[in-house]
């Protein structure tokens, strides 16, 4: 009867979500404190119920309970344990349940940690949050129920899609959902602010840590997805502007804009209307992402969780939540008064530029992603593609000014800045950047002519971030000891900013280097043959049949030599899975900071050899290290004192440092 416990818990959670949605807000309207106080325990209870529900499903997967249809369709008794576990969210129904669980965990987190929120604000936020939970619980129970039984029970399951049988599956979807769903709190706070007519610096300070948490998770989730697509063949490499990749990038871009605009709102009480709109849009884009993946209306490599019928339900959810909140915004935003006067050249001005460029690039991706669909509908069947060459061009030209302006922003003062003074402080960084352009252009004769400039943009951003930190601690102008002391006393959010910006620079470096200077060698090799790529010598030693837990594979053995010493043996392979007889290709990768040697074993030739593809991807690791560093910056910023104490007060620390 095990699985019925989960089913029962899910339905109970639906009922609790109605209570949590209605009662606390009714209390707010009637100024009834007791009703408002119901919100927090309800949120925790809802989370507990969904947790039980989810655990039940996990248990059914681990024990291979094939009387459950969802387990039968997506699991197999011979599958390794880790894939039985991660297979829970490797399918539509299970991943929606995880989605809902994460949503309620954010509600519970606000219930527990949001102690210094005013009670009416907290009640409203949890009420809005629960309305989202209600919609998705309804969606799961009526269209995507993972707890449905089948009878008679089949002998064994159908197995998980082989391409998903990878350790990254354990991390990629949960992290992405933590990011997507985390933005629901920004949304709930925005709607609560409109309902409560409370939009002040304190509000911005409550929202920022939650947005930051969501942003950190989304950054990590996208990065792991990119890394996975890089080593798994057939997914177009680390990024290829697939609609579903775009769907995750859009909330990331607007979420990044939101982080920066909330900063202006917190520090200067300006950009209120815009920040609230951005909070609504960011979560709406997350919902849109969910819709695009689930509905399958756009052709994408993520087509394993598709069902058009369900797409319509999600579309309805988007219409209700986005439409409703935008209507509320239209009614109430007129009464929000923005103050905080500032000159165009100022910290505020630079953050606005950041917002304009991030939002425009987000809008461009939205239009580019949906354009083929709209065109096909309007023209009556004519088809059009919008792919990587378009996005590279347009997105690249919008990011370039952003990256050029990025190091200048933190050097400008609030209200009125001096761009000349800021540039002078960045003189050293400017010199390094120029030097890099010349060096790269001189050393690398061919390749796209813009590549050295792009490469040095990364250096510009990285060096700018370091220089900002040096400037804040008076490095060089006072003793090293003093500087270190000041570094320890610096607000964490300031260190976090510098570190995150440094990560952006690293990522730019990786992207440009690997796109422009990739080396390749495609050839037919017999065992015993050797070849070279980018200074590495590769010897094809042998091929061997090997059996995995639930697949057979043909494994190649390649020894990699660097200046006559062996640095690695790579084992690219082709796998054939027992259950579905599907094949996957696994690359052999020798990773190092300077670049990866990437070997793919291709088809066997009639003449006793194999097609072998060897690449050298310079600095490719920097893409993901950059993302990690960005998340680390976010994490450090999150530990800032003023988020922990949470009390709505102007930040004096920052002011002190700035005024010196």
């Amino acid at each position, binding site marked *: 009867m095990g699985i019925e416990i989960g089913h029962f818990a899910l339905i109970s959670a639906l009922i609790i979500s109605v209570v949590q949605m209605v009662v606390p807000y009714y209390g707010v309207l009637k100024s009834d404190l007791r009703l408002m106080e119901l919100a927090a325990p309800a949120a925790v209870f809802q989370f507990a119920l969904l947790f039980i529900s989810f655990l039940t499903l996990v248990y059914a997967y681990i024990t291979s309970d094939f009387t459950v249809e969802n387990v039968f369709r997506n699991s197999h008794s011979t599958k390794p344990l880790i894939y039985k576990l991660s297979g829970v969210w490797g399918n539509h129904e299970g991943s929606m349940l995880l989605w809902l669980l994460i949503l309620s965990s954010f509600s519970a987190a606000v219930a527990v940690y949001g102690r210094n929120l005013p009670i009416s604000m907290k009640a409203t936020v949890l009420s809005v949050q629960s309305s989202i939970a209600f919609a998705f619980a309804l969606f799961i129970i009526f269209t995507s129920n993972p707890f449905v039984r089948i009878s008679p029970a089949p002998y064994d399951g159908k197995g998980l899609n082989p391409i998903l049988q990878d350790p990254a599956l354990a991390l990629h979807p949960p992290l992405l959902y933590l990011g997507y769903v985390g933005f629901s709190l920004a949304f709930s706070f925005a709607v609560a602010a409109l309902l409560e007519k409370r939009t002040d610096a304190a509000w911005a300070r409550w929202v920022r840590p939650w947005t930051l948490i969501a942003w950190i998770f989304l950054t990590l989730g996208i990065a792991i997805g990119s890394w996975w697509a890089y080593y798994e*063949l057939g997914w*177009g*490499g680390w990024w*290829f*502007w*697939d609609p579903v990749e775009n769907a995750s990038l859009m909330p990331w871009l607007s979420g990044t804009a939101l982080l920066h605009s909330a900063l202006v709102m917190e520090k200067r009480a300006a950009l209120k209307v815009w920040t609230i709109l951005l909070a609504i849009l960011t979560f709406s884009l997350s919902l849109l992402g969910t819709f695009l993946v689930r509905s399958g209306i756009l*052709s*994408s*490599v993520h*087509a394993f969780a598709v069902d058009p019928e369900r797409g319509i339900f999600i579309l309805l959810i988007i219409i209700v939540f986005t439409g409703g909140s935008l209507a509320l915004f239209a009614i109430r935003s007129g009464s929000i008064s*923005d*103050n905080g006067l500032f000159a165009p050249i100022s910290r505020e001005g630079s953050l*606005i530029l950041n917002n*304009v*460029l991030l939002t*425009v690039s987000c*809008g*461009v991706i939205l*239009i580019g992603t949906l*354009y083929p669909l709209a*065109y096909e509908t309007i023209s009556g069947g004519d088809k*059009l*593609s*919008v*792919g*990587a*060459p*378009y996005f590279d061009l*347009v997105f690249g030209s*919008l990011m370039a000014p952003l990256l050029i302006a990025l190091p200048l922003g933190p050097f400008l003062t609030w209200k009125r800045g001096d761009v000349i003074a800021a540039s002078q402080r960045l003189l050293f960084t400017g010199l390094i950047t120029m030097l890099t352009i010349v060096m*790269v252009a001189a*050393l*690398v*004769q*061919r*390749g796209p002519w813009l590549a050295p400039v792009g490469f040095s943009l990364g250096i510009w951003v990285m060096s700018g971030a370091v220089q900002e930190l040096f400037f804040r601690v008076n490095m060089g102008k006072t003793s090293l000891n003093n500087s270190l002391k000041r570094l320890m006393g610096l607000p964490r959010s300031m260190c976090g900013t510098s570190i995150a910006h440094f990560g952006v620079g690293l990522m730019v470096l990786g992207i440009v280097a690997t*796109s422009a*200077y*990739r*080396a*390749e060698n*495609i*050839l*037919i090799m017999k065992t015993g043959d050797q070849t070279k790529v*980018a*200074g590495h010598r590769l010897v094809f030693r042998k091929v061997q049949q090997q059996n995995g837990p639930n697949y057979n594979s043909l494994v190649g053995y390649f020894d990699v030599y*660097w*200046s006559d010493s062996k640095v690695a043996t790579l084992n690219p392979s082709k796998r054939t899975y027992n259950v579905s007889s599907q094949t996957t290709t696994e690359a052999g990768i020798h990773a190092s900071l*300077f*670049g990866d040697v990437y070997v*793919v074993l*291709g088809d066997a030739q009639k003449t006793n050899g194999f*097609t072998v*593809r060897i*690449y*050298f991807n*310079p600095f490719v690791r920097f893409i993901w290290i950059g993302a990690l560093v960005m998340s680390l910056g976010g994490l450090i910023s999150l530990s800032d004192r003023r988020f922990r*104490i949470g009390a709505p007060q102007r930040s*004096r620390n920052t*002011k002190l440092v700035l005024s010196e």
Partner: protein
Amino acid sequence: MSGSKKILRFISAHMALLVALLMVTIGFLSAEAVEPDEVIEDPRLELRARNLSAELRCLVCQNQSINDSNAPVARDLRLLVRERIILGDSDAAVIDYLVARYGEFILLRPRFGWHTLLLWISPLLLLVFGLLLVGFVVSKQKKSSKNVASNTRAHSLSASEQQRLERLLSSDRHLF
């Protein structure tokens, strides 16, 4: 002793790698699927084929270019592109030829025209709109805040009051 030597060797080996890597002369776009027997001997022609292929969609795939797809259709298209290039077609002629055969769907970067006007000008349009909006809001604020400022001048803090306030604000740093 040996430790420092090791580090030195590590650095020099990696410096050499760095230089080697910067020396590699590559202009090819990534090609995940190109087979050895497809490659044209003349590297300049092959480079043209690669650059063209990156713009062409594998018709049965999901957004993959024919460079990256190992579907049979993609291989046929790769061979076709190379055949046209060897026959002496210009890049534009190859594209025209393929569009005439397979429709504009094959282009990953749609052509500029009435039907793609919105797609191509929307980035500029959005950017101009965003900047205008910012300019408009800022100028409106300036006006309204001037009025507010003239009304509230009488109530603003004197210099000594301002100083005291700053001192108070900065001193309760130690309260936490």
